[in-house]
């Protein structure tokens, strides 16, 4: 069942009646700047409303910061291999921009979407880490967050490196092989190729969308300057012609404001969804890397098991007293191998489910974004047309004067 996962203030599953339908809805609100100078950061209020039995109560409010969200994402990535973990908004590199109202709002919205996507994913919503994130007090959260950084932290970027390393010779030399260890699944190859192409194209579209926002602002600015200059000329002229210039100038300035407004709408309702799409695809790439990792491990284990088997047979033939030990090791490895296979198969299965859901969800997400884009542009164009048309009768009276 397809649900709109993009929601501004929480509920993606509206309960029919509070007790019957299980629901978990979260909202990320009230960004507040805390701390001083370099240490300054934004904290958010995270409000959870749920009737899940595992949760402490129907409502809970906690304070979280960006790195807490990162912690959650990393934990989920570790635990739920095969699932496309919802993407997080990027850390902002530019210092000055970090605390601008626009950036904060964009981030808040993205974080809200992030948590709600997790909350409405049938696997992820069961996560204990999610429960911790939504309920733990701030000190506990801080402790967990610090523990996470340093030892355990594996960013998707690192995983991408591993994915690349799959192609490298290192592991091959260890195994004594020449060919890289990769799945030979044509459909999966197709998918991988598709995902990589998709990221490129989407990134390009997003880049142009962002530029389009800038262009709207620039056009607005130049219309404003043009209007001011026209008004000055009008004042200088003085007569009917002067009046015409003044009217033109006033209209230009008014339209400038409309353009700035539309630029903001465009950013929030078109550019951001595209950016979100790009992030989602990058998240999938991370999962692909994980899968390659798992596959490689599986293969390596299989190799090791084979070697152990051969070794065991040898020992059995020579009636060595190490047979027992070897057999024990062999059995252990075999169990490990089966476990790895199972994990891998689960991954594959999950990925297949995820990809279906992903495609469906993205069609909806993009459809909404396109619709908003179209509406916004139509609105803008119409108000521009109206504004200029309204000027024409005034110009007529000026010219006949």
């Amino acid at each position, binding site marked *: 069942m397809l649900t709109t996962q993009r929601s501004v203030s929480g509920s993606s599953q509206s309960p029919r009646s509070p007790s019957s339908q299980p629901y978990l809805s979260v909202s990320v609100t009230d960004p507040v700047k805390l701390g001083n100078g370099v240490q300054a950061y934004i904290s958010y209020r995270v409000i959870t409303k749920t009737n899940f039995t595992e949760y402490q109560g129907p409502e809970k409010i906690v304070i979280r910061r960006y790195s807490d969200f990162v912690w959650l994402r990393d934990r989920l990535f570790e635990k739920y291999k095969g699932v496309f973990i919802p993407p997080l908004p990027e850390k902002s590199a530019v210092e000055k921009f970090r605390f601008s109202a626009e950036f904060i709002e964009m981030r808040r919205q993205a974080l809200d979407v992030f948590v709600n996507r997790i909350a409405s994913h049938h696997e992820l919503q069961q996560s204990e880490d999610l429960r911790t994130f939504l309920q733990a007090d701030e000190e506990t959260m801080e402790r967990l967050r610090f523990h996470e950084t340093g030892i355990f932290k594996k960013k998707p970027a690192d995983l991408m490196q591993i994915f690349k390393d799959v192609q490298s010779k290192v592991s091959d030399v260890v195994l004594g092989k020449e060919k890289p260890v990769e799945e030979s699944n044509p459909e999966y190859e197709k998918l991988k190729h598709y995902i990589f192409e998709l990221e490129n194209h989407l990134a390009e579209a997003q880049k142009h969308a962002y530029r389009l926002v800038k262009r709207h602002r620039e056009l607005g600015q130049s219309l404003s300057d043009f209007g001011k200059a026209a008004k000055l000329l009008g004042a200088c002229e003085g007569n009917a012609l002067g009046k015409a210039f003044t009217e033109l100038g006033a209209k230009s300035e008014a339209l400038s404001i409309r353009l700035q407004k539309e630029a903001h709408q465009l950013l929030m309702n078109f550019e951001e969804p595209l950016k979100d799409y790009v992030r989602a695809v990058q998240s999938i790439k991370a999962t692909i890397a994980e899968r390659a990792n798992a596959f490689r491990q599986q293969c390596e284990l299989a190799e090791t098991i084979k070697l152990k088997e051969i070794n065991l047979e040898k020992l059995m033939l020579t009636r060595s007293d190490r047979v027992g030990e070897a057999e024990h090791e062999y059995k252990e490895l075999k169990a490990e191998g089966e476990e790895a296979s199972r994990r891998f198969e689960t991954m594959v299965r999950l990925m297949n489910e995820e990809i279906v859901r992903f495609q469906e969800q993205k069609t909806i997400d993009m459809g909404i974004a396109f*619709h908003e884009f179209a509406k916004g542009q139509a609105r803008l164009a119409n108000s521009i047309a109206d504004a200029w048309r309204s000027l024409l009768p005034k110009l007529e009276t000026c010219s006949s004067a």
Partner: protein
Amino acid sequence: MMKQENHGDEGANLHASQDDMESLVLDEPPPSSNGQSSPSASTSVERHSSTATTSSTSQNFNSILEPPSYADAIFTSFDSSSSNGQENPKQPSYQSDPPTRSEFLKIWVSDPEKELELTNSLVPGGTSYYTYLITTRTNMPEYGGPGSEFTVRRRFKDVVTLSDRLSESYRGFVIPIRPDKSVVESQVMQIEQFVEQRRAALSKYLNKLAVHPTLKKSEELRLFLVVRGKLPLAKSVDMASRMLDGAVRLPRQLTGEAAAVTDVNEAAQPAKGGRDLLRIFRELRQSVVNDWGGVKPIVVEEDKEFMERKEKVAEFEQQLSNLSQQAESLVKAQQDIGETMGELGLAFVKLTKLETEGAMFESQTIRATDMKNVATAAVKASRLYRELNAQTVKHLDKLHEYLGVILAVNSAFSDRSSALLTVQTLSSELVSLQSRIEKLEATASKIFGGDRSRMRKIEELKETLKVSEDAKSCAVREYERIKENNRSELERVDRERHEDFMGMLKGFVLNQAGYAEKMANAWEKLAEETSAYKRDGN
């Protein structure tokens, strides 16, 4: 299709463009789409540059959508947007301006050719220059009445000569400024581009002369347009005067240069007086040079109204210049947004292709359709922006043009100032001559019988005085004449400016409104196509 010259009829302009818009076929059914109709339609819509560049990229995306070509969205300078661009004089002539009393004089500049300079200097090898074919069609009686047609070849130097001679003959008039000798600093261009730019500028300039009510009837212009071979206009001889701008300048009649016009009275003057006159003025000029020290002689302007006028013009110039600059920025911004919109469209075309080829899920196919619709709308909007801009440039170019007119007005003002300076200088010269005579006469009377040489001196001075008095009254007449020219010309310029600017404003506004409406249509279509995704509560 789109008419090239219809300043006055902006309504027709808009409707023409509407027809062109309708003929642009952008949205075709996916499998059997035919992108071929678009290039031809858009070619006819593009006025200056061709859209031949669509052909290469269209092969890639033929199955989806006709992509825009960005090559011709390059910002062209205001000059080359002139309506006198590529006209063939063989075709029936258009009127580029509202017909004035059914009298017309239309000029085409074409066929630039390189010619070698015949040099008799010591430097081996020759320099070259370009000549242009000047074709004139007119029905004016001065040119021989209806059906008159002339062709001559002229080089840029000839135009400079024409311009200089007009400035001398028509002092006080607001004379169109001729094109620059030098290339605009910011533009590094090939010689071809330069020649084309110059050709266009010359065409504009000559046609401006041709619509000036007084200048169109000038002999100088007629000679320029009609007489084949060497231009029968002497270059201005009075170099010294020209260098000392605002210093003493005389009408040709007084210095006796011109062969054509000679004042009978002056011809009757004794040669001696004539030489003395010349000497007087050279001396005056010399004194000005000597007193220079970087400061020009001050004209004592007593006409308050004139001073106010001048101030007002200066202020107007400042505001106009400012507006012209902002207009350029506006045009740039419009161009940019159009370009980015087009690039966005292209990106979505690529996405559409990706989602279509080897789609694994139906949701992808649906999304591909949505993306194609977005691409179509974006590309259409991009084209509309481009056309909007081409029109905007045409309209706002008037601002730029009038900056040139102000230069001409200031030139007319300075003609007046220098004429006044002449009068004032002559007046003071008269005063000093008078006192010298009186002094000499006083000392001469003391010596009984008189000093021969002194008497002669007094006689000479008295003659010079008479000549100077005549010169002064001539100068006063000239000054009054120029004042009157100023007045009537300013009236004309005011009237024309009012008309031109009103036309410009109306055209600009209509243009903006028209294209905004078209864009709204394109976006509303997309909104309709994506209406299934309306959020709850919308």
